[in-house]
């Protein structure tokens, strides 16, 4: 009974407020397509009423601006879009107040040129990183996907909420159900924004959704210049000749098994993960197994757990050096090819995880096959990503610690 009352209440003041029209704005003949002449008529009516003393029924400024957007970016028609969870949504108006729970999605939006004004709420992880997200400092704090702040999310009156697609699905489902019962007009979109396999599709979909198709293509050209180049050059290497790699995360001896993100990235860079036969996603491996499998390259990831240093807020290489030395001095590990050949590399999780994964792939490709990639400069790629696409005033020569050893 109370649920019906709630729905009734919402309907009543949805009607009392501005009309939440499902039709394309300013589509006079209701054909579903906003033609140039319909748009022109709407513009002229509005100008007439405001500047020429006309008495015509003019569209509201919001309707007019929405119509301009739909005409410019969606060919005058309603947009039907499928997000990464397979859900299809139809929109007739642009999204103007976006709440994003996933900081990787915020980063991807920034890459394609979405203005910070359109984002009204971000997760606490975005707010906890003012070095990387300075322009989002004043936005509402939505909490996290596992512990969301529904009141803040409701208070900013978003028209769209962005969540993860493939992780924490039950938490995301709960957020959707609760927010929908507070405000049924909110639309929900699920994008991961960090999975390599879905990356290009997600960038394009978001570009279309937010009227930034051009920015999306420009970014994908940049992304492709790295990933396609790497893919082309390693394609000729037969599987047996691929460089054996041992990857260790920030916990000692915790490696990556089949199906994990790191395993995928090693493969994208042309390497062969020596533990890719393990079905556990993040197995704790036996140090002796590493010795017996004898990798040619060791990649160690820092930036979380006990090894929380480096990244954008840190300029000091000494902690990286200490980790490097610790690995090389592990008992009997000097027998491993990687240690003997001086091919132990430390990389920060920010450069290999999340939407910046392709920078990590670029680094790994140059480590695995330095002869194949003499012209690929991962540091320059990283800098271009930061300056051009993330619009950050951050100079990698002066700040930040992402890889060790690095010989400029």
């Amino acid at each position, binding site marked *: 009974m*109370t*649920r019906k*009352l*709630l729905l*009734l*209440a*919402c309907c*009543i*003041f949805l009607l*009392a*407020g501005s009309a939440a029209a499902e039709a394309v704005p300013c589509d006079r003949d209701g054909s579903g397509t906003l033609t140039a002449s319909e748009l022109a008529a709407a513009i002229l009516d509005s100008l007439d009423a405001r500047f020429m003393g006309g008495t015509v029924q003019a569209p509201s400024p919001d309707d007019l601006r929405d119509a301009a957007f739909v005409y410019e970016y969606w060919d005058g028609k309603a947009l039907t879009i499928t997000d990464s969870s397979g859900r299809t949504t139809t929109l007739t108006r642009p999204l103007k107040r976006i709440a994003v729970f996933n900081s990787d999605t915020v980063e991807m939006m920034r890459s394609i040129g979405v203005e910070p004004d359109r984002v009204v709420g971000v997760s606490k992880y975005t707010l906890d990183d003012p070095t990387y997200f300075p322009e989002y400092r004043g936005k509402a*704090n939505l*909490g996290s996907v*596992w*512990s*969301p*702040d*529904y*009141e*803040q999310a*409701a*208070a900013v*009156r978003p028209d769209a909420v962005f969540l993860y697609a493939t*992780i*924490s699905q*039950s*938490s995301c489902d*709960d957020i959707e*159900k*609760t927010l929908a*019962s*507070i*405000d049924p007009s909110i639309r929900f979109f699920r994008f991961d924004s960090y999975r390599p396999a879905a990356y290009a599709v997600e960038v394009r979909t978001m570009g279309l959704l937010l009227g930034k198709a051009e920015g999306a293509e420009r970014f994908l050209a940049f992304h492709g210049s790295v990933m396609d180049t790497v893919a082309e050059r390693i394609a000729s290497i037969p599987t047996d000749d691929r460089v054996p790699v041992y990857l260790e995360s920030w916990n000692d001896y915790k490696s990556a098994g089949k199906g994990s993100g790191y395993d995928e990235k090693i493969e994208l860079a042309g390497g062969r993960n020596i533990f890719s036969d393990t079905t*556990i*996603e*993040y197995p704790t491996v036996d140090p002796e197994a590493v010795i017996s499998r004898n990798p040619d390259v060791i990649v160690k990831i820092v930036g979380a757990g006990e090894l929380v240093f480096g990244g954008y807020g840190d300029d000091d290489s000494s902690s990286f050096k200490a980790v490097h030395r610790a690995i090389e001095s592990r008992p009997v590990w000097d027998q491993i090819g990687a240690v003997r050949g001086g091919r132990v590399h430390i990389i920060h999780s920010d450069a290999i995880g999340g939407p910046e994964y392709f920078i990590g792939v670029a680094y790994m490709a140059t480590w695995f096959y330095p002869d194949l990639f003499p012209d690929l400069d991962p540091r320059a790629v990283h800098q271009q990503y930061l300056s051009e696409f993330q619009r950050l005033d951050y100079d990698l020569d002066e700040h930040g610690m992402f890889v060790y050893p690095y010989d400029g």
Partner: protein
Amino acid sequence: MMADTGMQEYARLTEKRVLFISALVLILIALVGVAVTLGSANLPVADSYLAILAGLFPGAVDLPDRMIESNAVGIVWGWRLHRVLFAIVGGFGLAIAGTVMQGVLRNPLASPFTLGIASAASCGASIAIVLGAGFLSGYLVIGNAFLFAMLAAGAIYGMARLKGMGGETMILAGIALMYLFSAITSLLQYLGTSEKVQEVVFWMFGSLDKSSWPKLTIVTVVVAAVVPPLLWRAWDLNALAEGDEVAKSRGVPVERSMAGFMLAASLVTAVIICFTGTIGFIGLVAPHITRMAIGADYRTLIPASGLVGAVLLLGADCLARMVVPGTILPVGIMTAFLGIPFFLYLFMRRRDA
């Protein structure tokens, strides 16, 4: 002469009970009044009450513009109100389950979780979260948590029937189950990715964040269905408290009663914690407080401790929402903290014989 003082004492006791229960009801109403105004949306107090009225009588109330802008009605009816009511019903249910458990096990430190139900529910939730496997698709976590909790209850019942239905048997079986399910949960946490582990941990804290009107309805229906029969049978609990032989001599079917009470308490507990995660201490502390205030007659102890439980859980939730501005602490953490002064008090009161 003796009869007179006896009746006088009984009258005083009855008066104390009436006062106690009335005071609880008043506190509860006051807490509800406060709880609906709390929240980081910072709605003015009057707006919250106006929103409740507007939801109850839509169209009859003229909402000021600022309330339409802030969507006060949506926030109060879509988020705050059902949470507050859930705290009341949940606290009521957990406290009653705890009271019954303490009666059946004849142990004033027993709780609904003594028989391993919390560990079982956590295990079920972990399986759903980490492995994505469960019984009710679409409601994996909730379904698993409930079913595993009832599985534990069934296992206790089975083991007790095998070895004889005694308090000690049940507690031993409960401890064994607790270790089993905890081990499985730990293994799952080891195997899981960091996001999944985080989800499991958050689930185990116990929170009212996931409440909703449909869930509230389910819990209310179950509690409303279980509590009246419990009250009807409350005298049996009084008898059981005296001991098995005494109870048998009074004509109480001991084995059947204990099983029935235990299953009823487990059902109420399971249906609450499958939605909220494991919220501890309410089932332990509420009956204890009530017993100290109005004595151990289960006919009044059960409803009164239910009210105390409701007050405790709602109060804890209010605190959880206020203590760190901008964040909502999981209510299970708050109730755990509330347990501390309680146990300290018990400790201070002890006078070793």
